[in-house]
């Protein structure tokens, strides 16, 4: 189970890793248009500044606009509500005054006419007529009915319509049920009196029970004052005005409509007004939702009647209506965005100009020598510093490149010299003369041996054009040379080779031992009479914790002063003349060997001469222990440094 969990979690990890890898691929894939792609123009300095500024601007603008809009719109809403409230109160007051005036007319009719004792019919009619005439703009008729519903008097028309049951009419029954009160009816068409001109009037009936004194007898009667509904209608129409977003209506305390600007639509059921619920609300502001739209409903109760004056504020589509707040806010946001866009573009261009100029200059750089000085020295201290650093870097690169070229040239030259010296005709002539002498002397085996050694010597010297050979071949080359010289010098000296196996498997620059041996022979053994000893040793040692091949050529010759030995390799030119060297042997000096080793492997390696007068000379060669393989050989031939040993570093890299 545990193993399974481990397997599962490993698989899970793999999946996560592969997801991360694919995400990384998506984000950084070249050539793919994505904001973070390396080649995307959005990654440019200018665009990043512009985006950042724009983002900030948009956030600030939206925030401020929202705050301002909310503030403004709530203020506007409050003002609308206040205005509607004020209008509502005005309208309510006006209506109340009108109703009060109607009550006064009714009171006047009652107290000043009906209640007058002993008034006869004609006087009653006359008084009623007078009162009617005084208020006929607002009145349709005034009538008195007995408690049985019989018409006693009426102005202006007294002819009743037939088949009217007055006692069943609302105005009569309501008055009779509540004797002490005045009653206002809902609007209706007055249908009591016969008007031969066919005119009809919408009225609101004000009725009350009165004491009628006739012939000394007091009886109950019903006084009916029919108010002209037109007056209320005109009042409400004026209140409604032209504002489509708001309307006022009137209803009684049970919610029955008295006036509504959309009455016909309500009757046709194409518009709904929830008046019955509204009538039960308290006076003041109410916020409701109707058909998905918000509405503000303001109520005011008319005194005595209990009628409700209602104002409805509709919230219309705010964006596109003339004067719509949201429309202006959006316009303002758009214009502000446009201005900030232009401003941010200018600012980002200005700020990014130095780095863009620097970038442009670098792109346009052709002949570095000519244009390096023209890299812009412009902008902030950081950009100037960057530019100057770039200039210095380019100069340094140029210097290093020059140095490299020089080293390569030197290397080539020294190798050419070394090779050239190997095919120096003097050594060949001398050796061939020795061979001729040996043949003439009948020393055929010695001659064969000489020729064989010479052949091997030259084969290794050439090495098929290679400069890097295994140390085994270099040792062999040295042996060939020494074998030839021993014969030539009639074994005046002995040479011993003691090289570790592991050294033989390493690579080296060719033609390094032979020149040292040559020197040992011509400078060390010269003048000696048969006791010369030359020892060639090779082993791997640790120097500064790093492995190093140490080849040494030690002779027991005359030696040289210590100072000379120490400063021998500092000279540019060999102490002995080249022509002199050429006559004796290969002609390639120790300095050449030392330079070639250092050019190839670094300054850690090379020659070291230890000598003292009459104490012989030891020449040490230090090489890096690079194991031989074909690939390594090819790589080193092409000038690549091989990092098998960690001591590979220093100036003059062959990269």
């Amino acid at each position, binding site marked *: 189970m545990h193993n399974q969990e481990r397997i599962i979690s490993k698989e899970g990890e793999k999946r996560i890793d592969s997801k991360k890898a694919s995400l990384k691929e998506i984000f950084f894939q070249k050539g793919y248009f994505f904001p973070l792609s390396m080649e995307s123009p959005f990654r440019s300095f200018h665009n990043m500044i512009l*985006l950042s500024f724009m983002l900030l601007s948009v956030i600030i603008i939206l925030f401020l606009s929202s705050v301002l809009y909310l503030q403004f719109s709530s203020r506007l809403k409050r003002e609308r509500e206040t205005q509607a409230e004020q209008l509502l109160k005005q309208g309510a007051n006006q209506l109340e005054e009108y109703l009060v005036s109607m009550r006064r007319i009714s009171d006047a009719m009652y107290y000043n006419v009906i209640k007058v004792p002993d008034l006869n019919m004609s006087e009653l009619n006359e008084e009623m007529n007078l009162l009617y005439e005084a208020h006929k703009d607002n009145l349709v008729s005034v009538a008195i009915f007995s408690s049985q519903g019989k018409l006693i008097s009426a102005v202006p028309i007294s002819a009743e319509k037939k088949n009217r049951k007055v006692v069943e009419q609302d105005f009569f029954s309501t008055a009779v049920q509540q004797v002490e009160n005045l009653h206002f009816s809902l609007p*209706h068409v007055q249908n009591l009196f016969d008007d031969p001109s066919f005119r009809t009037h919408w009225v609101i009936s004000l009725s009350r029970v009165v004491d009628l004194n006739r012939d000394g007898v007091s009886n109950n009667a019903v006084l009916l004052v029919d108010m002209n509904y037109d007056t209320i209608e005109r009042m409400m129409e004026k209140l409604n005005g032209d504002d489509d977003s708001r309307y006022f209506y009137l209803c009684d305390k049970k919610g029955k409509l008295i006036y509504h600007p959309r009455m016909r639509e309500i009757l046709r059921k194409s518009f709904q007004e929830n008046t019955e619920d509204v009538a039960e609300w308290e006076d003041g502001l109410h916020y409701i939702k109707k058909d998905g739209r918000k509405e503000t409903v303001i109520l005011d109760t008319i005194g005595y009647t209990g009628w409700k004056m209602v104002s409805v504020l509709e919230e219309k589509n705010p964006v596109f209506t*003339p004067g719509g707040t949201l429309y202006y806010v959006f316009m303002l946001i758009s214009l502000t*965005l446009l201005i900030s866009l232009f401003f941010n573009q200018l600012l980002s261009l200005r700020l990014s100009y130095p780095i863009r100029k620097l970038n442009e200059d670098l792109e346009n750089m052709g002949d570095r020598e000519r244009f390096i000085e023209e890299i812009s020295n412009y902008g902030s201290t950081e950009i100037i510093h960057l530019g100057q650093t770039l200039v210095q870097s380019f100069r340094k690169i140029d210097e290093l490149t020059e140095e490299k070229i020089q080293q390569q040239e030197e290397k080539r030259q020294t190798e050419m010299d070394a090779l050239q010296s190997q095919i120096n005709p003097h050594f060949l002539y001398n050796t061939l003369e020795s061979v001729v002498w040996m043949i003439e002397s009948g020393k055929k085996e010695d001659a064969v041996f000489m020729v064989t050694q010479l052949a091997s010597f030259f084969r290794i010297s050439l090495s098929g054009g290679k400069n890097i050979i295994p140390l085994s071949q270099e040792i062999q080359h040295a042996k060939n040379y020494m074998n030839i010289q021993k014969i030539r010098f009639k074994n005046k000296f002995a040479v011993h080779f003691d090289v570790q196996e592991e050294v033989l498997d390493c690579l080296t620059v060719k033609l390094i031992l032979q020149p040292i041996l040559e020197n040992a022979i011509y400078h060390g053994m010269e003048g000696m009479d048969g006791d010369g000893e030359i020892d060639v040793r090779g082993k791997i040692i640790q120097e500064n914790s790093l492995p190093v091949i140490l080849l040494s050529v030690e002779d027991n010759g005359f030696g040289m002063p210590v100072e000379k030995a120490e400063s021998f390799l500092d000279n540019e030119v060999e102490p002995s003349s080249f022509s002199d060297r050429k006559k004796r042997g290969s002609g390639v000096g120790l300095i050449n060997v030392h330079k070639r080793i250092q050019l190839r492997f670094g300054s850690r390696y090379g020659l070291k001469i230890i000598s003292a007068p009459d104490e012989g000379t030891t020449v040490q060669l230090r090489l890096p222990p690079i194991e031989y393989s074909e690939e390594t050989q090819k790589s080193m031939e092409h000038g690549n440094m091989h990092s098998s040993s960690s001591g590979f570093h220093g100036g003059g890299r062959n990269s």
Partner: protein
Amino acid sequence: MKENRIFTVGVGIVAIMLFALSLGRLLGENAPQKYKISIVVDRSSSAGWDKFRKGLNAASKKYNIEYNFVTTGRFLSIQQEYLSLSREIKNGADGIITELRATEGTGVLLNELGKSTKLELVDCEKEVTDPTVSISSIGVDEEALGEALGKEVLQSNLQNQRLRIGILAGNQNKGNMQKRLDALKKVLEESEKEIVWIMEDKGQPRKDLEVANHKRSVDIIIALDNDSLEIATRYLRDTGRQFVELYGVGDSDELIYSLDVGMIRSLIVIDQYQMAYSAVVNLWQRLSNSRNTPGDQSVDFYVVRADNMYADGMERILFPTGQ
């Protein structure tokens, strides 16, 4: 250009926003343009147009329309009507509401007029017109009306007796009136009532009525339009024929009064107020190139008797206020 892509895109987005806002404002709820319309009907002074005028007034106020109710007498021919309509167009009417005195032969007239102005027909049928010419009409379901009227007659107090019926058919040049008459006749004939005479309005309806009724008196008179019913009412009043039952179509104050006092037994009232209101609204929508342009419409009719004429909703229909 690549470098400035963000800037260009940003400017583009803001420009689109500004364009959309401006376009929305143009297409949105703007203050309506003031249009001028003319109303050309047969016998404009007839009281039968009173409710129609009230509806016209209310709609014109709401939609900010200036209207001219052209004074006309009785149109004697289509050509006379055509001249009247053309004159209104020449006088700058943006649209015309009209009631054609006939149906047959008016197609050509409508095609021609419809190309130069917006036409709305009321209370009449239109002959087939060029489909590219936009003309709509508002009327009532004539078959249903005729049928309802017939059914009211069948409920007469005299139902157990053999009834003699006379019909004042009004202007039978109009296709809708023909349908009304046909529907009424169908109901009466199915109930085996005797239709003694049917009189079209040929210019002297009162005289024709007197002559016809003198020749063969009837128990029931049915009038198919307002003017005919008024004539019938006056005739009965003047002649004191209180036992003749009167039924008909109309809504003038006189007829309503007559219904109230019992002279008319049953009245079919077409919602003229709504007809006028809808005609104005339709015309306004077409003139303002609104996306909502309704086609032909119908309005309601009501069967009114003395016992229901003062009922809640009926009052508003019979006695419209300014609302």
